[in-house]
């Protein structure tokens, strides 16, 4: 943990020294806020944030791999990975530390949307349960997409390739849920259950069930383990 934390701190610093974090987070706030307030929020006239969280499963498909793309690919490209991996650090600590930094960037993005919630609460009675649940769900959902993005980043030294791999996998998962109703009575529910968006809709209702949380944590765990394997593959004989 100690080593991962040291790496996470450096990565977080790197995010806010480059324009990447600012650009991606600005896009996130503009698109999510724009779709929310200029969508049907005022037309519907209900003090809920359903419209805001409703776009998350698709919006984060694009945002999260863009946050994660530099994590390992950048170091591979510049060669600094060699210096990092010849320090007394485990590959798993490197992956975990970098993931933690990306998660913190996402958390910062979510914190910046709190004014949206406060605005809604001013306009009418806002039920805080679903909002808190949705924030947690968004962090888990985004966390899963970030882990996928990190995996993409571990595979290449080219950040563009990394982000495209991340987008492709995240998009496939999103489509899987979206199209599950067309997949027949047997396969359909399976695909639906396996999709991050479906799990998100469960948490977003304000009921946090252990199995939904376990779903996300396992998905994140699987991606990080594969990313560690990819990083270690340079050592395979």
């Amino acid at each position: 943990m100690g080593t991962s934390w040291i790496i996470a701190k450096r990565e977080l610093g790197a995010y806010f020294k480059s324009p990447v974090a600012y650009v991606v987070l600005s896009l996130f706030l503009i698109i999510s806020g724009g779709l929310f307030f200029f969508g049907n929020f005022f037309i519907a006239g209900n003090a809920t944030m359903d419209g805001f969280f409703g776009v998350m499963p698709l919006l984060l498909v694009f945002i999260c791999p863009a946050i994660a793309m530099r994590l390992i690919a950048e170091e591979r490209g510049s060669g600094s990975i060699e210096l990092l991996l010849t320090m007394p650090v485990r590959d798993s600590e490197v992956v975990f530390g970098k993931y933690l930094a990306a998660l913190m960037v996402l958390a910062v993005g979510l914190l910046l949307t709190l004014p949206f919630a406060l605005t809604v609460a001013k306009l009418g009675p806002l039920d805080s349960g679903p909002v808190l649940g949705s924030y947690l769900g968004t962090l888990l959902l985004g966390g899963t997409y970030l882990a996928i993005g990190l995996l993409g980043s571990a595979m290449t030294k080219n950040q563009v390739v990394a982000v495209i791999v991340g987008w492709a996998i995240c998009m496939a998962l999103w489509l899987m849920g979206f199209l599950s109703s067309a997949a027949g009575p047997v396969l359909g529910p399976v695909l639906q259950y396996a999709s991050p968006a479906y799990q998100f809709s469960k948490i977003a209702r304000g009921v946090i069930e252990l199995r939904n949380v376990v779903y996300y944590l396992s998905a994140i765990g699987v991606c990080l383990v594969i990313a560690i394997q990819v990083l270690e593959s340079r050592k395979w004989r």
Partner: protein
Amino acid sequence: MNDAPVMIRVDRLTKLYGQNRAVNAISFDVPRGEVLGFLGPNGAGKSTTMKMLTCFLTPTAGRAEVAGFDVFAQSLEVRRRIGYLPEDTPLYRDMLVLEYLDYVTELRRVPAGERRGRIKRIGEVTGIMGVLGKRIGELSRGFRQRVGLTQAMVHDPDILILDEPTSGLDPNQIVEIRELIKELGRQKTVILSTHILPEVEATCDRVVIISDGRLVADGRPNDLVAREHADKFRILLEAGPVAAEVRGKLEAMAGVRHVGQDPSESDTLQFTITTDGVRDLRRELFRAAVDNQWPLLELDRKEASLEEVFARLTKSEPQTAGNKAA
């Protein structure tokens, strides 16, 4: 060589990239307190060997031990004990120098209270105290190199592995860094790679030459030079004797393979005599001069530079075992 414990042991180390043998069964030991120069043309396998010693790459075959730990099985233990400067000094360009060195000392588990002291001590030697507040990406090549050297030494490692440590430095800095490496070499163990030959003669106790992934020479720089060029002699005579006659007499001597007349001033004659092996011909040459009454001005065994040794040993085709020094 000496009784110091072996700090780096390389045993038939091999690295294959596909079918290409980047490093081919090389073996050597480095005792504590030695500065080993790692020499070879580009693509000879120097960097690949260093990447294996620092646990970045895994050997395909053979093994290497650093400070008694296996680079594959005990990689963390190895990495705790080394300082490494990779080729091209890939540092984080977005960080400030001090920020970066703080980060490295933290990762290297230097106690918090000692970090700044260490950075100051090494930084003064490497001459980076004036740029601590600068962004690494804004530094010149030379300063980046010095920051790279600083991070390799800041945790006071027993073993230093430096891939072309003086590249990009100006002549004054090169002298300083060489002095520093020599100084460090007294207590520590240093492997440095270079293709600057005078650097080896100036800094290294011992040199290992590799070519096409194979080890072609291993020894003290002076020994290598002496061994490789013990077969050439030169005599300088005052004009007088008939050149063709002298040449004929020299060619008739035992063990002489070739006699060449070198261009010289009009009142002298100069010949280079190549023998068939390692044989000191100076006594016989002197005798021949006395017997034939040649006015001998100079007589010496030709001292060639390390450059020539290097050039001969690293010519494209693999060398025979005869060239492999002990």
